[in-house]
């Protein structure tokens, strides 16, 4: 019985931590709402959903499979570039507009996209179809890139693997920056907007739609990690030697994890460019799309999807606060010519350091997941007695 009590108490503590995190988030949101109004809340919510998707995919690879994924940006780039390059071209092709190499050229693109937008704006069904097409295209290209990267990378271990993934991620950014045909090279390419139908209320619609997509991915990942496949992943993470001895195909499972993770991250990247309305290759840095997601994940708790969500929420609010209040709170820096925006990097670095030093398991530590729900296990045990 004491065992049960201990488990219950532990559970209560966990519940309380989550509760506190949510309360902090709500308080900060209320504060921002009173100070700056509703648009800033919507921006935060959109960013939270996009980065939650990316960070959850990172969590699948790092938290569940134990792959040091320092090249998350590669998959995000795959999704972003695919959405910037492919769906718009397909629309242009059907509308009889130029869709070849000239689509991405900066002198043509800014005239093409408004035409596509006006067509999308005429029917919400077509807009929905376009959104679905964007997600599918992003997911497929992400999975493809994930598979491609996994080929040379899968045989490496630990730090070697991490560094190779990081290098691949950087390389993709440079490819996008130099290959004009893809997304315009050094000039950004506009992305047709599937939310144009809603006009000025665009953000009001983006938030629930993105939240729904993030929720679907959240549920899917929870199901996946509780399935036999998820148990294989955790076994591989804890001890790859014993996993191999138990007859698991390590290379296959790691490849699957990398491909699923890349696919989800690419969807996140695709949604991000739909929200911003343009793709600039040079903006897809490893700082934004690899290191920030790592910080979110570490703050939230590696291996816990709920924690990841809360981590993204808290840090996104802090980032936004630095941007909003840079002249009010950090005027002393402006006085000597320093832009307070750099504090974002300081925050990122400090969060990583503090989490590692003082709370290595994050806000919401990963729970030991039982194969069956706890209640059912209890019931079975009672029946036996």
């Amino acid at each position: 019985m004491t065992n049960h009590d201990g488990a219950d108490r532990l559970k209560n503590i966990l519940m309380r931590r989550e509760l506190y995190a949510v309360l902090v988030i709500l308080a900060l949101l209320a504060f921002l709402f009173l100070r700056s109004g509703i648009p800033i809340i919507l921006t935060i919510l959109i960013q939270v959903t996009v980065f939650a998707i990316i960070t959850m995919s990172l969590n699948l690879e790092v938290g569940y499979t134990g792959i040091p994924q320092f090249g998350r940006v590669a998959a995000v780039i795959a999704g972003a570039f695919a959405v910037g390059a492919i769906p718009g071209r397909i629309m242009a092709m059907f509308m009889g507009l130029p869709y070849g190499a000239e689509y991405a050229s900066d002198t043509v693109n800014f005239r093409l996209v408004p035409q596509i937008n006006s067509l999308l704006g005429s029917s919400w069904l077509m807009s929905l179809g376009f959104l679905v097409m964007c997600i599918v295209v992003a997911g497929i290209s992400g999975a493809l890139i994930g598979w491609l990267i996994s080929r040379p990378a899968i045989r490496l271990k630990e730090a070697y693997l991490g560094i190779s993934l990081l290098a691949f991620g950087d390389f993709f950014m440079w490819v996008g920056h130099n290959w004009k045909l893809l997304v315009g090279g050094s000039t950004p390419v506009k992305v047709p907007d599937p939310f144009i139908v809603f006009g000025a209320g665009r953000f009001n619609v983006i938030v629930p739609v993105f939240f729904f997509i993030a929720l679907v991915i959240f549920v899917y990942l929870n199901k996946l990690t509780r399935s036999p496949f998820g148990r294989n992943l955790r076994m591989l993470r804890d001890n790859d030697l014993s996993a191999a001895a138990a007859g698991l195909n390590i290379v296959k499972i790691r490849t699957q994890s990398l491909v699923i993770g890349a696919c989800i991250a690419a969807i996140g990247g695709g949604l991000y460019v739909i929200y911003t309305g343009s793709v600039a290759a040079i903006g897809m840095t490893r700082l934004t799309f690899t290191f920030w997601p790592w910080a979110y994940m570490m703050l939230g708790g590696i291996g816990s999807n709920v924690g990841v969500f809360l981590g993204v929420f808290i840090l996104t609010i802090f980032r936004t606060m630095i941007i909003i209040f840079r002249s009010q709170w950090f005027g002393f820096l402006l006085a000597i010519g320093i832009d307070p925006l750099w504090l974002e990097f300081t925050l990122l670095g400090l969060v990583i350091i503090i989490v590692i030093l003082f709370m290595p398991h994050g806000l919401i530590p990963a729970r030991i997941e039982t194969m069956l729900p706890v209640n059912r296990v209890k019931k079975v045990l009672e029946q036996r007695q």
Partner: protein
Amino acid sequence: MAPWLSSGLIYASGLALTAGSITLLYIVTRTFNFAVASMATIGFYVVYTGVTLYGGLPYRYYPLVFIIGAITGLICYYGLNRHLLNRKAAEITLMMSTLGYDLVLLSLIQMYADFLTYNYKLFPRRVTMSLFDFELFGDRAAAFILPLIAIGFLTILHIFLTKTKFGVAMRATIENPVLASASGINSDRVYLVSWIISGGMAALGGSFMAMAMTGTPVMGMYTIPLMFAGAILGGLGSIYGGILGGMVIGLTEYAGVYLLAQRFGPWVLGYRMGIPLFIMAATLLVFPRGLSGIPLAKIIKSLVGQKRGDSA
């Protein structure tokens, strides 16, 4: 000297020092030091500040660069790395902690660049350091001096590691930490010294690289994959391997881009980063543990054995 060769030599000696710094720290503390990126940039800014505000040749400031780099290493050791090493943290945790430190340093560098712009009316965000160089034998002096400094530094390091008592203790710790501490070697001090040396090396390497490329606040951040590529190519087994790996990566980048641009046109220049990464990926595919994974002793042994067989 051809322009690509002189630039390549300068760049490669810088990359060699940074790759050596990464390797040194990895073999002593198992830490993959991301902060090398910002330490390198700091090295460049120390030289830049000295040259623009106090005048003189860039070479004058190299001792100062080493000292400031060493201090950044020291701070990282006492503030961060030491606690994690005591805790026996995983390799990935050690790596992430230096990443956090790197980002803090990066933000400080950016602020410093803003500060220079505002207060001294300088342009520290796009700097061509080679303008401050002098001419020697009809070429940039750096192309001769920097490789020499790198070699000199390496020689001193070699003498330090093989001839001094502390150097021998350090090597013992690298070989077998448990046995070394059992025989009374203070491993804490060994870690500290390795952080100091590698911090100084990284800053010095960064100030070298700035002589061949455009100096920017994100210079280190963009080149860190190449520094890692050099260290990994060297196999992370010995400092000399790391230095050699960095040299190879740096020279092949310049030579490769030069040759490819001649053959296919200047559009290749944009993808220059791909060449060293390709070399690294190819090496890792064949030898998943880097160049030190090559069973060199075995190969030599078999070759020697064959020779004996031939002569007999």
